C-alpha cells in the first residue's frame, strides 16, 4: 500500500482554514447574539486575543495526568472528527482521510471529546466540574439519540455508511438533498444538533451563573487555550458532518463557509429566543419531540 505524503500538508491546510474560520465564526455568532440583546458585542478578533493571552499566562497548576489529557482528548476528538469526513466534496486536496472512516467512526468521535473532558474535569476534583460533567453526559447522550436515529435512517436510505458516498448521492440540484428526500430525519437531527452546541436552551452544562462554568471550572492558561482552540474546531467539524449528511455537502470553500454559517446560525437563532432548560427538562424534551421523529424517519425509509 502506498502512502500519499502530500495528504499531510493538505490536511494541515484544512485544519488551518477551519481553525481560523471557527474563531471568526464563533465571534460572529456571539456578536449576533449580542446584537439580539441590543449590545455591540465583542470585537471579531477577540477569540484570537483571548487565546494568545491564555497561552501567555506565566503560571499554571495541575491536578494530575488526566487533567493534562482532558483538553488533549477533546482536541483530538475535534481534529479526528474533522479529518475523517470529506470537508470539500470531490476535492483531492481537502478530502483528507475520508476514505478510511465511516459514519460510525464519526459518531464515536463526536462523543470522544466529551468523555475526555469528563475524565479531565473529574480529576480536577472541583464539585462544580463534577456536576457539570454529569449534566453534560446526560444531556449529550439524549441529544445523540435523535441524531443517531437520523444517521441510521440516512444510512438505510442510501444503503451505505460511507460519508463520501452519501454526499455523492445528494449531488445534482438541491432537491436531491436529504433535507428534501428525507425531511423527518433532518428534523430529528437538527433538534439533536441544538443539544450539543452549548447554546441556550441547552447550555445548563456550563451554566455560568449557577455552577461557575461547569466542567472547565479548574482549567486555566494553556489548558483553557487548548480547549478554546477545540471550541473553534469542534462545532465546525460537527456542522461539516451535518452538511455532508443532510445538506448536500460543499464542493468549494465559499459554499462550505456559507452552509456552515447557516447551520450554525440555526443554533444561535434558537438560542436567543428561548431561555435555559434544566437537565431533566431538556432530556424530556429530546425524548418527547426529537426521538419519535427519528424513529418515524427510520420507519418511513
Amino acid at each position, binding site marked *: 500500500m502506498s502512502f500519499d505524503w502530500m495528504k499531510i500538508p493538505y490536511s494541515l491546510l484544512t485544519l488551518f482554514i477551519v481553525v481560523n474560520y471557527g474563531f471568526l465564526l464563533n465571534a460572529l455568532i456571539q456578536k449576533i447574539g*449580542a446584537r439580539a*440583546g*441590543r*449590545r*455591540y*458585542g*465583542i*470585537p471579531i478578533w*477577540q477569540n484570537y*486575543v*483571548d487565546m*494568545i*493571552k491564555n497561552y*501567555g*499566562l*506565566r*503560571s*499554571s*497548576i495541575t491536578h494530575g495526568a488526566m487533567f493534562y489529557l482532558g483538553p488533549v482528548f477533546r482536541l483530538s476528538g475535534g481534529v479526528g472528527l474533522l479529518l475523517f469526513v470529506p470537508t470539500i466534496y470531490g476535492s483531492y486536496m481537502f478530502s483528507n482521510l475520508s476514505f478510511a472512516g465511516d459514519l460510525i467512526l464519526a459518531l464515536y468521535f463526536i462523543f470522544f471529546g466529551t468523555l475526555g473532558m469528563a475524565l479531565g474535569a473529574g480529576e480536577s476534583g472541583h464539585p462544580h466540574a463534577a456536576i457539570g460533567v454529569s449534566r453534560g453526559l446526560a444531556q449529550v447522550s439524549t441529544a445523540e439519540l435523535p441524531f443517531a436515529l437520523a444517521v441510521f435512517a440516512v444510512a438505510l436510505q442510501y444503503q451505505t455508511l460511507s460519508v463520501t458516498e452519501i454526499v455523492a448521492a445528494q449531488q445534482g440540484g438541491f432537491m436531491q438533498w436529504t433535507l428534501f428526500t428525507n425531511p423527518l430525519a433532518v428534523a430529528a437531527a437538527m433538534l439533536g444538533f441544538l443539544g450539543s452546541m452549548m447554546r441556550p436552551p441547552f447550555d445548563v452544562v456550563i451554566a*455560568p*451563573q449557577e455552577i*461557575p*462554568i461547569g466542567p*472547565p*471550572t*479548574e*482549567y*486555566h*492558561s494553556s489548558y*483553557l487555550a487548548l480547549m478554546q482552540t477545540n471550541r473553534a474546531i469542534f462545532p465546525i467539524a460537527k456542522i461539516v458532518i451535518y452538511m455532508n449528511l443532510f445538506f448536500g455537502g460543499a464542493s468549494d470553500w465559499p459554499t462550505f463557509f456559507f452552509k456552515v454559517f447557516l447551520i450554525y446560525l440555526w443554533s444561535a437563532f434558537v438560542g436567543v429566543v428561548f431561555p435555559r432548560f434544566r437537565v431533566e427538562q431538556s432530556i424530556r424534551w429530546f425524548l418527547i419531540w426529537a426521538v419519535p421523529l427519528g424513529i418515524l424517519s427510520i420507519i418511513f425509509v
Partner: protein
Amino acid sequence: MKDELKIRVVKGPDGVEFEVEPLKDYYCEAAPTVMPAAYIKVVEDLFNWARSESIWILGFGTGCGAIEMRPLMTPRFDAYRFGVQWRPTPRQANLFVISGYLSTKTLKRAIRSYEQMQNPKYVIGLGSCTINGGMYWDSYNTIKRLDDYLPVDLYIAGCMPRPEALLAGFQDMKKLIRAGKAEGANLYAENFEWYKANQKRVIHDWDMPDYNW
C-alpha cells in the same frame, strides 16, 4: 481551628483506613514565586498586548460597588466591546475588582480568590473605601487601606464611581498592562511575608494555609 480542618482518620470505600490532614492534603502550600517575563522582549510585548485587550474579571462583588459592575454587561455600557469579560472562576480571571468596602470576613475570601488566580493578575480598588476606608473610616470590621493586604494596580476614586468611571479605569488599566507596569503578582510574591503579616493582623480566625492555590 474548625473541625473539618483537623487531622482525622477516614475509612475508604475499599475498607482501608488512612489519615487525612486537610491543610496539607487538600491545599498546596508552596509559597508564590516571582515569575519572570518572557526572555524575548517582542514576545513579552505581544503577551502584554493580548493581556491588555483580553481582561477577564473575576465576578466577585465585595461591597456596594458590585452594583456598578452590572450595568457594564448591559446594552447601555457594554464593556464586552473593549475586550472586558466576566469569568465565574478565579482560575480563569486576570483582574480582581475589589468593589467597595471590604469587611475582614470578606477579606479572607478575597485573599483566597486572589491567590487562586494565575500570574499575571491585577487588582483594581473601586471606590474611596479601598483607598482610605471612605465612609467606613472608623468602622471596627472593615479594612481601611486595601494596598496593605493585596497589591493594588489602580484605584478608581469616588463614592460610588459611575460605570463610566469604571470603563475609564479599564482603559487606564490597559495602558498599565501594555507598558508592562502591572506586576502585582510578582510584587505579592516578593513581599509575601509583609502581606501575610498584615492579613493575619486583621483576620483573627485564620484557618487556612498561608498560600492556597
